[in-house]
């Protein structure tokens, strides 16, 4: 409905910031976000996991109050859950003990609507999403796609002005996701629903380009808006068209960014001035797999946005893998292309033992690993209790992340045979003298 743009602002975020305190340190989940959503607009929030897009959605709907900044709905500050907004959830969030009918009915009942009025409206909504005949079915009897239809019916039941979609298709199989997308677009562009604007959180680039009028791209550490892309294509959109591909390419190159100089790529060690870089959560086996695949491609180079499709992995996982490969200097990302470095090539062709040595040499340079090894080296028996390292890391990372980071460190360190770990005693040892 980009054509019917009325330029009436529905929702405004002004300098919104969300911080979490953990111990003495504060972590910024969302930093200084300014965003306006206009009537008639379909906006997609796109970004890697951990960039705060879901947090933003919760702030927009009033589920969460931002630490700083203001949220205005039709120029009125939002206080509490916004009654004009609703969410379609990633995991559907249906009440498993209520039938399809009761699930939709509950949304109306909670607003105090008497049962005779409710019954007609509920039946109508279930009809409209094509679930008639399934009124008495329980969610567990339905397929994922049908469950999400119930989610949509329930969301529409309260006639929201602002419909928020929290990765609504990511838990579905490819086919049902596709048909649900088209059905939603039909309802939306056909004006069959009183909804004034749609905001969709997504990490699927193609989906965003397919559906949205405007794509707001976010990045992490800290979560912030880095770019806005106007799509400006007519509905229904053709995925194969050149214009579509061009938008995809643009969004992908913004998201993948490009490899920075090594000092920036690596970050600093805990306690030092600057940003402690968290390690992406990938296994070395997967990383080696990526490098091997790249080494078999002509010129050891590939278009990064086509890589998930080519390798059959999801794009989130691939972004993490790419990040790890970048940190270790195995690949180079520029202008939407990923290229294997000569080191990466050597690694891909090396034997198991030689790979370990290359890997060890590379991760010694990672400040976090260097920090851990120095700490181990300076302690008695060159061993430290898991808890002690954990405590030290806790002041560096947001809650929950410290444990994950330590697990990754131990996993990588073990793989490189730099450190070993005894789970019974919860002790981390230094293996080779450094």
């Amino acid at each position, binding site marked *: 409905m980009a054509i019917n743009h009325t330029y009436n602002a529905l929702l405004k975020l002004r300098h919104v910031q969300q911080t979490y305190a953990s111990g003495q340190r504060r972590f910024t989940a969302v930093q200084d976000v300014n965003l306006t959503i206009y009537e008639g607009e379909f906006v997609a929030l796109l970004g890697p996991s951990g960039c705060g897009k879901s947090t933003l959605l*919760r702030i927009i*709907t009033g*589920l969460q*109050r931002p630490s700083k900044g203001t949220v205005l709905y039709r120029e009125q500050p939002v*206080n*509490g*859950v916004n*009654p004009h*907004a*609703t*969410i379609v*959830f*990633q*995991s*559907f*969030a*249906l*009440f*498993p*003990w*209520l039938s399809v009918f009761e699930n939709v009915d*509950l*949304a109306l*009942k*909670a*607003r*105090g609507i*008497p*049962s005779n009025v409710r019954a007609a409206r509920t039946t109508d909504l279930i009809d409209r999403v094509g679930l008639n005949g399934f009124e008495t079915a*329980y*969610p*567990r*009897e339905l397929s994922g796609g049908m469950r999400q239809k119930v989610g949509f019916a*329930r969301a529409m039941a*309260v006639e929201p002005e602002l419909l928020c979609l929290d990765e609504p298709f990511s838990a579905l199989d490819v086919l049902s996701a596709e048909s649900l997308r088209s059905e939603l677009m039909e309802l939306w562009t056909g004006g069959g629903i009183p909804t004034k604007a749609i905001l969709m959180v997504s990490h699927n680039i193609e989906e965003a380009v397919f559906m949205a009028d405007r794509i707001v791209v976010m990045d992490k550490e800290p979560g912030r808006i880095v770019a806005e892309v106007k799509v400006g294509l007519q509905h229904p959109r053709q995925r194969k068209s050149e214009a579509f591909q061009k938008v995809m390419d643009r969004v992908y190159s913004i998201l993948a960014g490009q490899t920075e100089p090594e000092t920036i790529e690596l970050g600093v060690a805990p306690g030092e001035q600057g940003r402690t870089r968290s390690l992406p959560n990938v296994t070395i086996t997967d990383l080696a797999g990526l490098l091997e695949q790249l080494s078999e491609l002509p010129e050891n180079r590939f278009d990064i946005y086509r890589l998930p499709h080519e390798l059959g992995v999801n794009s989130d996982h691939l972004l993490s893998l790419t990040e790890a490969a970048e940190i270790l200097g195995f690949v180079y990302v520029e202008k939407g292309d990923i290229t294997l470095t000569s080191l990466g090539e050597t690694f891909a062709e090396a034997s198991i033992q030689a790979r370990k040595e290359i890997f060890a040499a590379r991760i010694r340079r990672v400040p976090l690993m260097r920090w851990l090894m120095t700490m181990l080296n300076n302690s008695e028996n060159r061993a430290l209790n*898991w*808890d002690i390292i*954990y405590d030290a890391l806790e002041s560096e990372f947001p809650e*929950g992340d410290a*444990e994950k980071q330590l697990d990754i460190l131990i996993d990588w360190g073990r793989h490189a045979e730099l450190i070993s770990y005894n*789970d*019974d005693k*919860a002790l981390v040892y230094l293996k080779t003298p450094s």
Partner: protein
Amino acid sequence: MPKQIDLLPCVPMALGSSLEKNMGLLQNTLPPKKRIKRPFTWGDVIVILLMAVLLYGGARLSFDSPLIIEGPQISLNPFALPWYTLLSVGRMFGAYILSLLFTLTYGRIAAYNRHAESVLMPLLDVLQSVPILSFLPIVLLGLSAILPERVAAELAAVVLIFTSQAWNMTFGWYQSLTTIPRELLEASSIFRLNTWMRFKRLELPFAMIGLIWNSVMSWAGGWFFLMASEIFTVGSKDFRLPGLGAYLQEASNQGNFYCIALGLAALIFTIVALDQFVWRPLLAWSDRFKVEMVESDQPPTSWFYDAVHTSRLFLWIRSVLLKVNEQFDLWIIRRAPMRLYTEVKTSKRNWKIGIFYSLTGGLLLYGGYRAVLMLVLIPSTQWAQIGIGAFATFLRVSLSLVIALLWTIPVGVAIGTNRRVAAILQPIVQVTAAVPATAIFPIILLIFIDVTGGLNIAAVFLMLMGTQWYLLFNIIAGASAIPQDLKNTTSILQLSRWETWRTLILPALFPFIITGAITASGGAWNASIVAEYVNFGGQTLFATGIGSLISQATAKGDYPLLLASTLSMILAVILINRLFWRRLYKLADEKYRMG
């Protein structure tokens, strides 16, 4: 292979994935994510102090309790049995209602209020590991000082059963509330469910299955304590209550085997009837509340439920109730719509909390000081007695555990891995396990009383009776959970019988054995109160032990000794739990857990 073992609910261990849920009780109280370093925290100290103060208060009150308490006349007339049964069930029911109310409020406060959570959950953890029966004498004496004797005894029984029922239910409810998926909570807010609708449509359904299973466990445990409080008599203080337990005791006292059989039959009938007409229908009904998005292959069934829920009368009642319910819901939705953010005025709250803490702190310190004043009155010889007693009871508890382990491991493995054995033994085991050990204790006494060291044997026997089932059912669950591919691997590797036990069966059973043993050991300590000191057939017998000391102190009216021995027992059990069981439990959880 029997995947899910079908048990009578009288046995507190019949959960599908038994380990998860049973361990959940303990696990909840372990600090999250970080590995625990200290077995004790400041919270524990405060809780133990609180308990000392409470006990001191009880002991203080007891000074005014009458020296001689006359018991009721227990009639052995078979026609009195229905009435006695009704009385017993009534006490259980009263205590259960109390437990339910307590659970819903306490668990909800703990789950939604961070400040309260940090106090309430450690408190609950200590409470659940305390040997509840050790409170019985002080509660009885304390209450009989301020209330008429019969009312005091009734109230003490209800309080005692309540304390045996409430904790696991509260833990379960709290655990459910804190594990409601975030998106369901958010959906409730987005769709503006008010507090009542949220409770009715989200919290209660989500917790329902756990709540029912925990209720089943609580009732099973409750019978044990009901029987104990119905037969409690020390010296010239007869605290008995007319009921099934007292009937059985009186019958044993008189050596009337006909009446013993009648009493046992009535007891078993009651338990089986409750199972068939209450718990099984409830479980079958609650299957709809499971959160898993797949159909279960073996949903719980109940013939009674199937018969009733399609009957016309039931449907008519249901439709009427639904109409009333709809009106009520709409009324309450309009009256109390969902609350928006509540503004928290931190400064003011801190101020109030500060006052609350300093008041309770002051009260605790003063109470603790008075308790210490009472404790210093105790001569060192008595302290030595307490030490020796605690050690003797510890030996009995350990012995009963060892005996229980020796027979339950082979039998449990046989039942858990062999369908034919299971088909023969399971019904027998279920009925036997249904009878609360305290109910048969008088009968055991009748048998062993004339043997030398008879009371010692009877005491260990009682502990065994009360503990072995926890172990057996956990081991059955553990054995039936051993994955088939691992069993195949051991046969492909041609491991010897002993090797198979050492490398597969025992490690796989370990978590289940520990879970069972923790509950079992708690039960055995409890049993010592009734087992080590008995009035039987006009004579008083006692063995060396801390349970015996508590009973003797009650009989003599030696309140400082009563306080000291009760406190010592509680401390001993908590110490054993923290230093021994919890470590093993952690080991089991971290290293030997399947999957």
